[in-house]
Each structure stands twice: as structure tokens, then as C-alpha cells.
């Protein structure tokens, strides 16, 4: 009997976190690599010459504020869920979704601002094309984030998000914060490098 207990006591359980959360982080890593590749391509291309410098659309700053606010409301939704304030979770998620959509509209407007400045996607100056690629690809990822947010919002309507069931809203928050951070990175990158 003593012997048998030794068998049980000897090996330790392995360190682990929730697989789905972990997979989300890995997905984020792959997105980071995609944008790292594109921004380094931007720098390599810039060193190559034939470069057009232009003013960034002014609305970018506004959009940055909007996306930062949405991160804030996302966080408020999460802390409300932790405290079981279910009504507030719904509202905060809804505001986050609206701010996300507002951001996308703002990014779209930035494209027409660019066109007014004669910066086109199809041109012989890669600097212009890159801006469209950055905003466009980021926008696509943001749409995926919005879909995730909407799914989370629907779960909150069904009262499935509360202090004892935080996985979904935690993952949603991680992804949304990442998308916001990614935009801030792109914006600061362009501010310094264009």
C-alpha cells in the first residue's frame, strides 16, 4: 500500500494554461509576424529610394483615440462580468462594437483623405501602397475581432457571461486589446518612418 502511494505521489502534474487561450496567443504571434514582415519590408523599400513622403491623414489620430476608447470599454465590460453586473456587460460590449465600427468608418475616410492628397494604392511609390496595405490588412483583422465581439455580445444577451464563465470574454478582450495595440504600433511606426 505504501508502495502504491509512492507511485501516485511521485510524478507531478504538468504546467498548463487553458488550451484555447494559449492557441489565441499563438494566433496573435502569427499576426505579429505578418505585420513585422510588412513593416520591415517598408523600411527596406525606403532605404532603396524612389520614396514619396506625405502627410498622414489627420483622421488617424481621431481613429487612434476611438480604438483606445474601445479598449477601455472592453475592459469595463470584462470587469463588469467579473462582478456579475450583467446589464453593464451588455452595454459595454455594445459600445465597444459601435466604437469598432466607428474606427472602421474612420479608416475608410482616411483613404479618401489620402486620395485627396494624391496618394494612391496603385502607384509607382510603394510608400503610398504600403499605407493602404497596413490599414486594409489591419481593418480585415479588426473585422474578425468585431465578429468575435458580436458573438460575445450575443452570449451576453443569453446571460452566458458571468463571473464563473469568463473564458470567452477574456479571450475576446485579449484579441481586442491586441488589435488596438497593433493599430497604435502601425500609427507610431508611420509617424516616425514616413
Amino acid at each position: 500500500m505504501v508502495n502504491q502511494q509512492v507511485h501516485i505521489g511521485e510524478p507531478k502534474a504538468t504546467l498548463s494554461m487553458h488550451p484555447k487561450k494559449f492557441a489565441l496567443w499563438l494566433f496573435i504571434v502569427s499576426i505579429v509576424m505578418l505585420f513585422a514582415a510588412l513593416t520591415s519590408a517598408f523600411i527596406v523599400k525606403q532605404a532603396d529610394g524612389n520614396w514619396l513622403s506625405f502627410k498622414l491623414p489627420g483622421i488617424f489620430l481621431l481613429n487612434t483615440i476611438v480604438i483606445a476608447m474601445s479598449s477601455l470599454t472592453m475592459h469595463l465590460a470584462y470587469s463588469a462580468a467579473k462582478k456579475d453586473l450583467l446589464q453593464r456587460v451588455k452595454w459595454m460590449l455594445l459600445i465597444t462594437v459601435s466604437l469598432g465600427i466607428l474606427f472602421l468608418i474612420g479608416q475608410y475616410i482616411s483613404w479618401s483623405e489620402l486620395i485627396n492628397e494624391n496618394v494612391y494604392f496603385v502607384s509607382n511609390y510603394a510608400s503610398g501602397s504600403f499605407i493602404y496595405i497596413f490599414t486594409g490588412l489591419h481593418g480585415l483583422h479588426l473585422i474578425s475581432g468585431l465578429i468575435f465581439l458580436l458573438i460575445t455580445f450575443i452570449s451576453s444577451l443569453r446571460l452566458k457571461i458571468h463571473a464563473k464563465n469568463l473564458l470567452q470574454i477574456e479571450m475576446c478582450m485579449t484579441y481586442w486589446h491586441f488589435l488596438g495595440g497593433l493599430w497604435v504600433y502601425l500609427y507610431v511606426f508611420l509617424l516616425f518612418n514616413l
Partner: protein
Amino acid sequence: MASTVVDEHIDHAVEDHAHEHHDNFITKYIFSTDHKTIAKQYLISGIFWALIGGFLSLVFRLQLGFPNAQLEWLRPLMGKWITTTGKLDPEFYLALVTMHGTIMVFFVLTAGLSGTFSNFLIPLQIGARDMASGFMNMLSYWFFFVSSVVMFISLFIETGPASGGWVIYPPLSALPQAMSGSGLGMTMWLIAMALFIVSTLLGGINYITTIINLRTIGMSFLKLPLTIWSFFLTAIIGLLSFPVLFGAALLLIFDRSFGTSFYLSDIYIGGEALPNMGGSPILFQHLFWFLGHPEVYIVLLPALGITSEIIATNSRKPIFGYKAMIISMLGITVLSFVVWAHHMFVSGMNPFLGSIFMLLTLIIAVPSAVKVFNYLTTLWKGNIIFTPAMLFSIGLVSFFISGGLTGLFVGNSAIDIQLHDTYFIVAHFHLVMGSAAFFGMMAGVYHWFPKMFGRMMDSKLGYIHFWISFVGIYMVFFPMHYIGIAGFPRRYYSFTNFDAFSTFVDLNAFVSIAAIITFAAQLIFLFNFFYSIFKGKKAPLNPWHSNTLEWTTPRLPGHGNWPGELPTVHRWPYDYSKPGAKEDFIPQTVPLSETPESNLQHEAKIVAELKSKVKS
């Protein structure tokens, strides 16, 4: 401690019950979420692609070995790609070379190798019921399948498949008017690769998550078999490098179809200037090789992991330098990301930069050599059992040495000026990466076939397959070193117009004949494989007397792998021929307290400590 274990037993019992659902044919064999079925799907798809990729190489070897031969007899298969004079169409020759490379590198040695063995072995060897997400895993295979379909169809379209080389350098690949293969064929290539990248990322995320989070009780990182370590690092490399290829391909797609100028500049076609200005084709090379070089290790590392496992098992000795093996693989993983520009020494890069990349490249020789020495020292004075899997593993080590040595030449930026884009390069990477990874895959199939299908493959046919392949591959690629040093460029349709190369006509014919024989030997494997699935001898539970967890499952493990509770791990996987032990292997599930006769000093101490703890 004991009480938590009891809780888990109950959990598992509930889980087992959940697994007892009945599958119909479609959920069991087609849209399966079981990692073992998905692994088999990958394996069969990989074999299918290997046959196509191999066949394409035979066609262009015919052209190279026998430039005057009549190829009229190929017309039923190749149609208008055989010209009216009975020759191979020169543009289609380029398509053949391109597709051979693409298929072998991505569809066979990435999807076929990692897809098969990561899927099959990760849950079985770490003691998990399945992958972290079975659904994502299934999705990964079906993305690969759709990608395969697109790539396969591109072989048959009128303008031919992509023909700009597997590296698809622009401007050749970016301009449909450059060659017929850069039209629809190239578009399909890009679509297929985009799908392929999605598939690889889905798979890789799953592998990493599973290895980190779903290890069974006791399976610490330093008790993992080296196979799992290699799959783990391979998946990390893929996760970090494939998105970069995606970025490169995305910009190429915009250049091709939307008129941007990321890669295009100052191009005249037929005397007419293109509007594109200011692009940089070198930019593409940087982005491509940032994936392209790590890709080499994505192909090779799983093969090395499989080999470590098989060599240790069949030498009946612990692997020599277990931690050194892990550190070497870590070193290779890190270094693989900082050497990409050695593919671009002659692209006009700054020679100083070249010397930095040369230094980093040559440093890779260190971990690679550590691995080779560890294989050899594991074999040294072992009770070697020459199973077919073991022979293929030893063959891998041989190829890794002979191909790796030439890496010292081509990694040198000065010598590379002479050797760049010659057959020397072809010989180098076909030995060190192509053949070595292929042998690793074959070794894996022979070794784990009993676990996959519950039956044994015929070992006599395995020996014949090995010897013809081994000798054949050396006969194919060794002469290419000489041809390359003489200055033969790769991807050339014909050499008959150059007097300097006429002395090599016989050698080229020899290579082609050897290639045909080597390919024919693979048909032996094919027969053995499919025959054994249905008619092979039934396999015992642990045919190779191996220590790892997969051999503690039933002969044909069901969904969930272990019928009862999950096994618990008490020791590392390489306790072979431990002095004092009753048998020459001690499975990972045997506790130290059951083997007092063979415990080493520190192990005996652990047991004593635990016993005193229990008593108090």
C-alpha cells in the same frame, strides 16, 4: 496529492464515457477530428504528392540525360507539351522543375512529414486523448486538401502551371507576359500557397498548444521524447516564418493583379516599357528567404527527431546527449532565422553584410555536427537491430553528413560566387534536406506503421526498398557535385549547345538512369504499404520493445487513445539496456520504485525520499 489524482480518475472516467459514441463512415474516415485519422489522411496525401513530384522529376531527367531521345510516347499523358518533333517543350521543362520543387518542399516534406507525424505522435507520445482542438486539426487538413486540389488542377491548365522556379522570384513571376506559366498557373500557385499557409498555421498552433498544455501527469519537458521536441520546434519555426511568406505573396498578388510596384521597376518587354517604377525585386528575395530558409528546418527537424527515437530504440541504448540534442535543435531553430541572406550572396548585396551572414551560416554547422556525433555515439557499441526503419535512420545520418559537408562550401560567400545556382547546389540540398528528410519520413512510416494500422510491414521488401533507394540516391546526387563544380547552371533546358559540357553527357545519362531506378524502388514501398494495411501480419503491442507511451495503447487505439485512464510518466524515454534491469527496456510508465535493481544513485534517492515522506 493522492486525492487530486483520484478526482482526475473520475474526470477521466466521465470523459471515456463521452468518447463512446458511434461514428458513421463520413465522420470516421473523411471529416474526422481524430488525430490518428488526420495523420493517415496527411500520409496518404503526402504519398500521392510524392509520386507526382517524383514523376515530374523523371520527365525532366529524361530530357537532361537523353537530350536527343524521342519523347513521342509521353504524348498521351502530356499532350501538347511534347512538341511536334517529339521533344519536351522548353517552357514546360521550367514548369516541371518548378512544380517538382513546390510539391516536394511543401506538399510532401512539410505537410506529408509534419502533418503525418506531428498529428500522429504528439498526443500518443505525450499521453493526451487528442489534439487541443480536434476541429481546428480537421480544418487544417481540409485547407491542405483544397490547396492540393488547386495546385493539382494547375498542372492541367492550358497555359501550364507556375514556371518561375519554386522560389517564384519577381519580375518573372509577377508579369503574365513574361512566360506562359506566369499567367493563370502562377495565380493558382499563389492561391494554393495561401491556403497551404493557413493550413500550416492552424496545424502548428494546435501542435504547440497540445505539447505545452496537454502533457500527461509526470511528462515534464525533460521527459519528452526527442520526436516531440523536434515537432514542437518545427511548429514554432512554421508559426514565425509562414506569415512572412504570406506577406510576401500578398504584395506579389497586388503587383500581379492590381498594378502596384512593390517588386517591379524599369522593365522592358518586347521593347516596350512597363509603367511600374521604383519597386525592388530584392525585397521579395529577402521576404521569401526569411521563410525559405527556416522552411529547410521545418522539413528537416521532424526527420531528425524521428531518427533520434528510432536510433536509440534500435541501438538498445539511451540517446547520447539528450540535453545536447535539445539545445542543438534550439540553436538550429534560432539560427535558422538569421541566415536567410546566404541564398542571396550574388544578388549584389553589400559584401560586409555577406560576411556576417556567412559567419552565422557556418555557425549552424556546430549544432548540426553535435547532432551527428550524438547519433554516431548512440550507435557506438549498441546492440543494433537493423529493422528497415533503423536502416533508413542510419541512411538519414549518412545523407546529413555528406550533404552537410558541402554546406560548408556553399555557405561561404566567396566560394558561392562559383557555385551559386549550379548543380552543386542541387546536389547539396537534395542530399542534406531532400533525401535526408525523405528517409526520415520513410523511417517513421516503417517504425510507426504497426501503431497506425495494427499490422506489420514486410521487412524483406523494406530492406530491398532501402538498399535501392540508398545507393540510388547517392548515384543520382553524387555526380551532380562534379557537374556543378564544372559550372552547369540549374534549371537549364539543355546543354547540348555548349561544347564545354559535352564531356558530361554520359554522366548526365547515368544520373537519369539512377533516378529512374530509385523511383522504381519506391513502387516496392507502395506495394508493401498498401498490401500491409490489409494483409500484413498482425502487430504485437510493442513490436520494437520501445519505451514511449504510444506502445501502451491497444493494438488499434480508438478515439481517445487509452481505454482507461491516461498513463502516468515516471522516467525519461531512453531507459534502454539500463545496467541491472531485468529487460533491456523500461517503459516510461514504470515507476522508479518498481525498479530498485536498476535505479541510479539519484533515482534511488528520490524513491527513498518519497517513501519517508509517505511514512511520516
